[in-house]
């Protein structure tokens, strides 16, 4: 298998695996965060605005881990620097 094919195969597989594995843990974390928030909302309804605001901030921080994985796999599929470098070499050389 020449290097161009190897780069393509590895990039495609890595892109899929990155986003697949990378969204398991944030999803579990967000589920636990929301469930704890709902419990505390049921126990203290007057603190609803504070709990909701803190919940959203926490969810965004957890979500950013999944966003990092998504950005990596987007880069691998659409703006792959290794692929571009090798394609430029083969079309130029």
């Amino acid at each position: 298998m020449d290097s161009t094919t190897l780069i393509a195969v590895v990039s495609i597989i890595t892109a899929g695996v990155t986003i697949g594995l990378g969204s398991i843990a944030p999803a579990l974390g967000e589920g636990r965060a929301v469930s704890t928030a709902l419990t505390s909302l049921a126990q203290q309804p007057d603190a609803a605005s504070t709990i909701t605001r803190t919940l959203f901030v926490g969810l965004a921080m957890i979500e950013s881990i999944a966003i990092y994985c998504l950005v990596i796999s987007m880069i691998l599929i659409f703006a792959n620097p290794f692929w571009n470098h090798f394609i430029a070499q083969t079309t130029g050389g």
Partner: protein
Amino acid sequence: MHLSPDELVYWRYGFVALNSTIVTTWALMLVMTIGAMLITRNLAAEGPISRWQGFLEIVVTTIQKQIEEVGLHEPKKYVGYIGTLFLFIAVSNICSIVPGYEAPTGSLSTTSALAISVFVAVPFFGIEKQGLARYLRSYLKPTFVMLPFNIISEISRTFALAIRLFGNIMSGTMIVGILLTITPFIFPIFMDLLGLLTGMVQAYIFSILATVYIAAATRTREA
């Protein structure tokens, strides 16, 4: 595939290029500034106020209250900076409803610029509130061993701010583009709605995180 609005260049001279990001940002700045100037031309303190003035008052007082609730005292000093962050990101995300519009926050350059401005603003407000010596000493705060970790955390949260906003907006537009080629009728509309919702949430998150960082930097520890 069209990854970001940076790729569409309208005008180039040497290495200076006016791409779609810059032009859209200028258009947004123009609209918001002229709108605000028109609304605040004849401010009324009492008596019947125009609806637009009431709307602006709601926006400003809500932002001020949120800043106060997060724990940053004297919100009036910070409402200019944090309000600008929130309003710019919110307006640029909600204008995605206009057809043919590409949000400038979907480009890594805009979000990095906003994140770098937060990175500069936090020490600026911290030093203004506490003085240079006390602010620098706060980096040694739990123990002096934590100095490299405090610096690393400052830098990494700047990256996180930029990538979080960029990733959310860029993936929203890209998902709609991909779905349009697969199921072109109803589903892209739902993803567009979700994109609007996440745009507003991300604007809120960005400004609240900036507020939290500034609050941590200006928190004066009573001896």
